[in-house]
């Protein structure tokens, strides 16, 4: 008798264990034939059942025996519809509760079979029957109170995981996100949850995903706004950026906390990144007072010749999840400061940061945590896949190497160090975006630099040394956009150019005054006296 549906239970149970389904999902089993005895009930409990719905017509002695075998709450009809056998237990409720607790008392209608599939044409019937079931329940419960007055029941809102989960979800949900276009909020066609990677049962927000029509509307709105914004004096644009910086800084703790909840970065990093974004806004506000052009001597005595930088037009910023507020700031702030209008498409996700053996892995909101979860379940699987690839390629895992299951359902991966890999291995060459690092030994400075340069990428590199000569040599030899000496390779200041070499960049630079090159274009003016 045990066939497909037991398979469903088992697979769903395994999916819940693997984090594919929420850990607080309750499985309620209705086993009208299969689980009519204690042994079968025990099997079902071991398969992950949360509530057991045994046959409606078992005797009290049989139910009492099942109760001895399993801790699952039972779910028993005290008045079952005709197609269940029409069993009525109203006068047995007191004994049922006494011997079978914990128990859900289920009130069907003996003379009105359940109606499903339903549908709008049946809705009045379903509504009427639902009301009648509650009325019958009031009769049954009155009998229970009369014959077993000391029976205890639950208060509402303490009645199960579903409600607890929903309360948690609602209490922590700050906002419902939509697309803001031309001063109005736009709803997309698809609603997704913005999940806390440290606690996947928590939705940080509901996000109404923008679609192509929202994107078109955004570009049109930005185009329409461009003429006025371009005409706005640059210092006035700077005032607006400065005001935005002030607001962001005032809210840095809250914004940083939200950043940590949706991305998994530690709280210190989340707040720090938010303050960095405010500083970036201020920096570009200050540049609105800088010279925006230059004059040239003309070959003609009557010509006043000058050239100035002008905005390009509408800028679209598509930003990644790894620095969800700093990176948008260092693109949007100069774009606006120099007179462009902006359409910003933020990342659906948001990131993960550094990792090192011995660093504390844990809840990113807790003090002392050095490494939080990775940004999403998919990313966690990607990281684990890379670790497996590393092992298959001959790597030796010196530390970590697995999902950190002792931290609940969060998307935590142990900080992982892999040795014995070739520099041509995928783990060594590709960007993993997870707490995984490889050790590649080199017998000389020259070999180390050759290894580091033997990659199609070249964003940042760092060298730890007390040898000033080596440091200067390294800064010269390494083919990257940013060199760090005695600093980790992440972490950037905003007043200097930033960008990568080789395939890590389009060739341009942003941040600092380099942003002016990116977000403006030259206009040369010849003006003759008449």
């Amino acid at each position: 008798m045990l066939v497909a549906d037991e398979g469903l239970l088992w697979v769903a149970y395994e999916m819940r264990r693997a984090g594919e389904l929420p850990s607080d999902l309750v499985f309620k089993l209705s086993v009208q034939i299969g689980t009519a005895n204690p042994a079968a009930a025990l099997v079902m409990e071991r398969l992950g059942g949360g509530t057991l719905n045994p046959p409606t017509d078992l005797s009290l002695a049989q139910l009492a025996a099942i109760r001895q075998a399993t801790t699952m709450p039972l779910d028993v009809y005290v008045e079952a519809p005709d197609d269940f056998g029409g069993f009525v237990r109203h006068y047995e409720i007191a004994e049922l509760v006494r011997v079978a607790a914990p128990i859900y008392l289920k009130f069907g209608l003996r003379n009105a079979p359940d109606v499903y599939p339903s549908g709008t044409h049946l809705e009045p019937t379903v509504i009427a029957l639902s009301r009648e079931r509650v009325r019958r329940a009031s009769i049954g419960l009155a009998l229970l109170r009369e014959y077993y007055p000391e029976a205890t029941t639950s208060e509402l809102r303490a009645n199960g995981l579903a409600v607890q989960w929903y309360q948690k979800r609602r209490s922590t949900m700050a906002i419902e996100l939509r697309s803001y276009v031309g001063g109005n909020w736009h709803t997309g066609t698809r609603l997704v949850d913005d999940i806390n990677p440290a606690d996947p049962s928590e939705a940080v927000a509901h996000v109404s995903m923008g679609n192509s029509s929202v994107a078109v509307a955004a570009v049109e709105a930005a185009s329409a706004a461009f003429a006025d914004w371009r005409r706005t004096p640059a210092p006035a644009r700077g005032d607006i950026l400065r005001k935005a910086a002030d607001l962001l800084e005032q809210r840095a703790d809250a914004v940083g906390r939200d950043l940590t909840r949706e991305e998994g970065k530690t709280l210190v990093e989340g707040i720090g990144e938010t303050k960095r974004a405010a500083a970036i806004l201020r920096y570009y506000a200050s540049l609105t007072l800088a010279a925006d052009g230059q004059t040239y001597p003309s070959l003609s005595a009557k010509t006043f010749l000058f050239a100035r930088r002008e905005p390009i037009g509408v800028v679209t910023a598509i930003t990644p999840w790894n620095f969800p507020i700093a990176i948008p700031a260092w693109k949007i702030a100069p774009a606006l400061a120099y007179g462009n209008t902006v359409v910003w498409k933020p990342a659906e996700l948001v990131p993960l940061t550094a990792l090192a053996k011995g660093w504390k892995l844990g809840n990113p909101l807790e003090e002392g945590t050095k490494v939080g979860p990775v940004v999403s379940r998919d990313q966690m699987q990607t990281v684990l896949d890379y670790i497996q690839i590393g092992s298959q390629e001959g790597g030796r895992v010196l530390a970590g190497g697995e999902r950190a299951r002792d931290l609940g359902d969060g998307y935590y991966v142990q900080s992982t160090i892999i040795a014995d890999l070739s520099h041509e291995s995928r783990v060594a060459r590709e960007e993993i975006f997870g707490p995984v690092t490889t050790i590649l030994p080199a017998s000389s400075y020259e070999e180390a630099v050759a290894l580091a340069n033997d990659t199609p990428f070249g964003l940042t590199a760092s060298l730890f040394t007390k040898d000033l000569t080596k440091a200067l040599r390294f800064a010269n030899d390494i083919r990257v956009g940013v060199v760090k000496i005695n600093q980790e390779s992440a972490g950037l200041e905003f007043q200097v150019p930033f960008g990568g070499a080789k395939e890590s960049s389009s060739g341009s630079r942003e941040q600092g005054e380099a942003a002016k090159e990116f977000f403006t274009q030259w206009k040369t003016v010849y003006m003759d006296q008449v």
Partner: protein
Amino acid sequence: MLRTRNFLKKLGLPESDAHSLPTSSRRFPDGAQYRVEIPNVEGPAALEAVRSAAQEYGVTVHRISQGSGIMLLRTEEIRAMATLGYKIGCEVSLFVGPRAGWDTGAQFTARSGRNLGARQRGMDQLVYALEDIRRACSLGIRSCWWQMKGCCGWPMR
């Protein structure tokens, strides 16, 4: 028979039905002995009817269950049920679909086959059922219901 009963006892099972009807010492986590469920609440309008009737009759309803199946509810309906369930503190339990009735088999329509109607038939249907669970979870539901063999009056009325 005694030998068999003793073996079952070693497995941690009762040796017989509990004819003495002992009082259960087990409880819900909050200490309660019983909770109340109203079945066949097929949609947000029916749930609203349960809510108002519960208020009228002074009944505390801890859980409602729905039998048509997640896949026969629209996204807005599921969200509405989850939201109303949250507001009134009532667990919302949805049935998983699709089931045998959507498949090609005729056995469940036979008199002796009615109880088979709630099965998942074949691997594809198992996959569909798991996707049904995922969908409900994504919309705020945390209580899913399926039958192992039985049939809660599942055929259309």
